[in-house]
């Protein structure tokens, strides 16, 4: 019986104009946007490659360790085509140095893109689904029950010994099957386009992640279909159901996310907290400066300058640099000599001794300030972001967005993973410095007896997290979506069972 019902419903749905229109519009939008998005990704990847090359070249050209500026670059995520999330937003080059602990807030944007282009909204495939699939689901659902009530066919069907639950199930299954056609077809085309692109290489893990995105899309689609059925069952008249469905759609997709953010978002930054933390950080560095001066005052040549009045062919600098807005305050000293005259030779051991001491002290102080700086930055930037995304998750649209971001690895965690890796890399670099006694080497400040050996440096590499971690991050939101599905289904069932025909 159930199969007959499903068969009937399926035929009813497949032969309609709305089905043809649904397939056409999703395919059109997804294919055009995928082409554009792939091009955009290719450009970002080219920008990344250029930046990596440029930074390597710049490092190779540096004469001394102390003047070397090591930058690591954040590669674009190929799955950002599905949900761009935060992939484009934070800076994509960050300096690795023993002088401070690099974080998301120290990253800059390398110069490949035009900052003005941010005024245009950027699209991704999930955005298309978010808008179009929900609309299609409602268009398919608004007359599912109301139409039968109005047409009187429901009475006819029920005079046969058909269970009401079966009718509901048949309608649900057949409509979902119809709606899956445009979804899966468009995703298939998108994946084909992706695999045909020369620069994008997707591995098995990526296909699993795309599978997760498809799963989330199906759950999302189903939520909207059920909302439509609910309206249809409650309204009983197609015209009322249609109007209600459209306004619910407009509210959930267009109005709710923007209005919530407009209402809860505040421009002000927690000034007091910033100022007190910055003070604390400054104090830590003042203590550092006292230790440094104490060392200079008590070593073999008391009372000299930090550079022991060694002057060579090149530049030198020492001092504090700070950025109160980002809670950064740190000590910089570099010496970039190509030549040194013999008269300074006796002072060299003392300088080496001092720089060995200084390197360790700067590293330790930087690590200590990070303990203060990290919670403050989390409080200023991460906390409000978390509150905002929690509010957005009150609507299925927000849940869908969050879960697909988690699958694609473009969510907050995914971006921060990169910076965690960068911090680990900094540890490696510092370990290398200690092992090779780089701080105390002559090449730290002068290249006259050989340039630094940049080739044997630890290499930076960033791997996106495993699929199971992605899954773990996506799970709460997916299960919420599924739960909404179940609840909606139960409510509809109850309404439908009790309704008079």
């Amino acid at each position: 019986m159930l199969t007959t019902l499903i068969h009937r419903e399926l035929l009813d749905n497949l032969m309609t104009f709305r089905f043809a229109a649904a397939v056409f519009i999703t395919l059109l939008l997804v294919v055009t946007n995928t082409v554009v998005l792939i091009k955009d990704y290719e450009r970002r990847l080219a920008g990344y490659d250029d930046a990596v090359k440029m930074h390597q070249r710049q490092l190779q050209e540096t004469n001394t360790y102390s003047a070397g500026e090591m930058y690591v670059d954040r590669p674009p995520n190929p799955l950002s085509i599905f949900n761009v999330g935060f992939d484009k937003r934070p800076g994509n080059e960050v300096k690795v140095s023993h002088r401070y602990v690099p974080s998301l807030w120290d990253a800059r944007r390398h110069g490949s893109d035009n900052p003005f282009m941010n005024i245009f909204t950027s699209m991704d495939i999930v955005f298309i689904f978010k808008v179009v699939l929900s609309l299609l689901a409602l268009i398919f659902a608004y007359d599912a029950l109301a139409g039968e009530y109005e047409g009187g066919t429901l009475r006819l069907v029920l005079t046969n010994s058909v269970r009401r639950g079966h009718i509901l199930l048949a309608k649900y299954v057949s409509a979902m099957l119809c709606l899956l056609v445009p979804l899966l077809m468009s995703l298939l085309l998108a994946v084909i386009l992706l695999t045909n692109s020369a620069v994008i290489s997707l591995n098995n893990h990526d296909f699993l992640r795309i599978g997760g995105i498809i799963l989330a899309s199906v759950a999302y689609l189903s939520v909207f279909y059920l909302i439509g059925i609910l309206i249809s069952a409650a309204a009983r008249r197609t015209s009322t159901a249609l109007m209600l469905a459209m306004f619910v759609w407009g509210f959930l997709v267009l109005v709710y996310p923007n209005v919530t953010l407009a209402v809860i978002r505040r421009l002000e930054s927690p000034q007091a907290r910033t100022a007190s933390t910055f003070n604390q950080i400054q104090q830590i560095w003042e203590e550092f400066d006292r230790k440094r001066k104490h060392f200079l005052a008590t070593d073999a040549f008391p009372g000299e300058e930090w550079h022991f009045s060694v002057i060579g062919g090149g530049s030198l600098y020492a001092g504090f640099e700070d950025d109160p807005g980002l809670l950064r305050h740190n000590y910089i000293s570099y010496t970039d000599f190509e030549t040194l005259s013999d008269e300074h030779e006796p002072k060299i051991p003392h300088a080496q001794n001092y720089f060995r001491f200084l390197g360790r002290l700067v590293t330790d102080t930087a690590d200590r300030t990070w303990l203060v700086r990290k919670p403050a930055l989390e409080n200023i930037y991460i906390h409000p972001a978390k509150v905002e995304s929690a509010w957005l998750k009150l609507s299925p649209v927000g849940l869908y967005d969050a879960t697909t971001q988690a699958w694609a690895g473009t969510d907050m965690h995914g971006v921060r993973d990169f910076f965690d890796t960068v911090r680990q890399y900094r540890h490696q670099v510092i370990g290398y410095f200690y092992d090779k006694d780089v701080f105390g080497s002559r090449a730290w400040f002068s290249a006259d007896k050989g340039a630094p050996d940049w080739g044997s440096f630890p290499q930076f590499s960033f791997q996106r997290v495993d699929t199971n971690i992605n899954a773990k991050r996506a799970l709460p939101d997916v299960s919420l979506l599924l739960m909404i599905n179940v609840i909606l289904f139960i409510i509809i069932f109850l309404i439908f069972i009790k309704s008079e025909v």
Partner: protein
Amino acid sequence: MWHIAKRELYDNLNSLRFALATVLLIGLMLTNAVVHLQEHPKRVQAYRDGVAEYEDRLTAFADESLYRLAQKGPGDLHKKPSSLRFCAEGSETDLPRTTEGLIRWTTQTLESFWILRYPPVNTSLGSLRPDATLVDWSFIIGYVLSLIALLFTFDSISGERERGTLRLILANAIPRHTVLIGKFLGALISLSIPLTLAVLMNLLTISTSSNVHLGAEAWGRLSIIFFIALLYTCLFLALGLLVSARVQRSAVSLVILLLVWVSLVVFMPGTLAAIAGDSASPKATHGFYEHSWQLHYALEDQYSSRWREARGDSRKKMEVDGAFVTEDVEQQEHLHEARLKQQVSQVNQARAITRLSPVTIFQHLLEAFAGTGFERHLQFLENVKVYAREYREFVVDTDKADPESLHIIGVREGMSQKPVSPEAVPKFEDTLSFSKDFNTAAVDLLLLALFIIVLLSGVYLAFVRVEV
């Protein structure tokens, strides 16, 4: 005709969609007003603080000497926030609010003069907050009202045909175009009721607050904006009528309209901007700063021979120094400006192509009249450039007026050492000019009118030929 309009109006007033539309629009407009009342004073305060800092700086340098004034420059120049920003946010958060006067280098004997620079906004770099379209008038009207307009008209002809009432109406001796105009006017009036209500409540909330002051000019602009909003609504009403007249069943008509709306309003702006931006992408500016320093060193090399010649002759050395500083400033500013020009032309191309979507035209119009957005930003940059020229001319003129000065711009010893009266220094004032706004808006206004005329004639043709 009026009879038909009246009938349509009564039909609509009693309907569910009218009630829902009214509630939704009023809710959105009130949110908009409340958010604006909270945010606007902060923006104004930030601007005032910025201007005060700028003036203090100028006064301090003017008290010191003309040389200081010429060397340090005016510093950061601030863009004046528009009091009508609640009408169109115009992506102001992604546009810089200041330009910068940058001192690039100092040596033992020379200091670089300031150069005008256009730093991008970096506030978004550290933020992991979700993206949001801000709820401004251009969103409420451009997105929500346009959808509502389609919901009001999708069944106005096809529905009557389904019920058979269309045949009845046409059986009377009323010309078809009269019926059509009646229907159009009825829908327009029934839509403008909730719109007007919502707008009035919004403006009432904003104007009764003491935090925000709207002047006479602002009210003029607001009425133009309201007029444009009505025009834009007409466009979507016409679209709805067109599809409704061509299609036999109202369910089909709605599906078509919704899909057209989604593509026109939601997807076209972003996709077209991406396509256009991609084709016009400026060449990568990797190592822009590297390049700027390379140019600087090249210039230094060029001057090294002249410095050698001038050795021993202090007057001549000063002249060479001055020429070097001046040329360095020109070169660097030229470089920054060239980059800005490239970026602007990319955005302009993208903006031109996105005009294919009516919602973008509408947003551009609102931005133009609200004094926000990209065009406004370009106007600000233009103001800054004019001011920078004025400022430099002032320095040269004041220096000429000082008989003790050697008139060598760029070197401390070669310029007037006397303090300048702070009142005499030209002050930067960011202005919004109405005629300029109107010029930028004219194209968009024409395009919008063209869209409407095409659609309306389409409706007329479709309805006249309709088989009942």
